[in-house]
């Protein structure tokens, strides 16, 4: 088996037997090392018009409010040196409060919520901050192994400012007992790195009497490059 995990590797390996879907999708040949800095080039400049007002409020697109615990999710997008990643696209998606995605491929027998699609996007500001309003997603069963349930999570896609910063990840919630049995979460080899995928309860960033506050900072690789015009 060639799982190609480098000793200093922070990300999960491609081949992780506990997550069945990796078996036929993980490359087995060695990866080609590109010259240093090859991916540290300016990335795409996403026009401001790409994000419309309200795209960061996942609770505002139905006839009434969606079911579930309303939450305000804020955080900062930073690079490895702690510098803000500015004006960069953040896209999120998630299951509804009963653990069902508004997706034709989701066969989980839990109700759809007509007031919740579960997709949002925003840009970070000049300090790297972002903010979403949403509901806490439900856990759901999946077919990976007997009694498999995914912990509650929100998917994040970060474009970053250079191709080397591109990241897709998942955010988990503190104290979730399902984290211990989740192969996706546990595919990250280092415990401290795993815990960086867990958000923090931060009540005062919520809305008093209305919404819980959670904070989730995301750290990308460092990059010298930024998109043109940013």
């Amino acid at each position, binding site marked *: 088996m060639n799982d190609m995990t*480098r000793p200093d590797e*922070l*990300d*999960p*390996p*491609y081949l*992780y037997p506990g*997550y069945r*879907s*990796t*078996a*036929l*999708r*993980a*490359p*087995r*040949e060695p990866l*080609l*090392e*590109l*010259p240093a800095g*090859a*991916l540290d*080039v300016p990335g*795409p*400049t*996403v*026009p401001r*018009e*790409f994000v419309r007002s309200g795209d960061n409020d996942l609770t505002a697109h139905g006839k009434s409010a969606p079911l579930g615990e309303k939450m305000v999710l804020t955080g900062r997008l930073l690079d*490895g040196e702690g510098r803000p990643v500015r004006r960069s696209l953040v*896209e999120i*998606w998630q*299951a509804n409060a009963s653990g069902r*995605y508004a*997706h034709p*491929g989701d066969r989980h027998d839990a109700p759809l919520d007509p007031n919740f*699609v*579960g997709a*949002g*996007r925003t840009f970070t500001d000049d300090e790297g901050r972002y903010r979403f309003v949403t509901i806490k997603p439900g856990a759901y069963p999946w077919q990976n192994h007997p009694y498999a349930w995914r912990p509650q999570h929100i*998917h994040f*896609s970060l474009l970053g400012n250079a*191709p080397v910063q*591109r990241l*897709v*990840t*998942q955010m988990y919630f503190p104290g979730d007992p399902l984290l211990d049995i989740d192969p*996706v*979460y546990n*595919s990250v080899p280092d415990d401290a*790195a795993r815990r*960086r995928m867990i958000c923090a309860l931060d009540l005062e960033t919520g809305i008093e009497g209305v919404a819980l506050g959670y904070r989730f900072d*995301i*750290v*990308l*690789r*460092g990059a010298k490059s930024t*998109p*043109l015009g940013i």
Partner: protein
Amino acid sequence: MAEARTPSQTIGPFFHEALRWEDGGNVTFAEPGRRIVLSGRVLDGAGAPVADAMMETWQLSPAGRTPAPATGSARPHGFGRVETGKDGRYRIETSLPGGELPCIEVSFFARGLLKALRTRVYLASEERVRADPALHALAGSPRLKTLVAAPAGANEYRWDVRLQGEGETVFFAA
């Protein structure tokens, strides 16, 4: 400090609603260029189609420069994002990149990929690609041809991607 990085996780099977960009497979630029179509199939280690992947592309403009910011459009120049279909097929329409050796940077995200797979497709003859210093480790390898698109008629290129197994595509260390 780099150790404080947030780790990668799989995109999973349910990203489509959130990450689908309208007309994301029609890559635009500020300047005119020769329009081309790049298409093919993505297959797994059993040769089965990968029907739930997202593919992103990034490339130089027809003039060989970093694509200029878009004006009067909601999408960035030079960047493509498409989904594979039921049969593992993808298709992007773009302009032939400028520069000495035209190539497109490609990333794949999918269920079963705990981190993105990065590669590159060259729109040039295998002989010319073999001379690229960035690929010197592959100079004598038959695997180099997995990075070369095949011309398929006027302004069309075909490039199939094999994630694993016989004919496995060359992927890059991220």
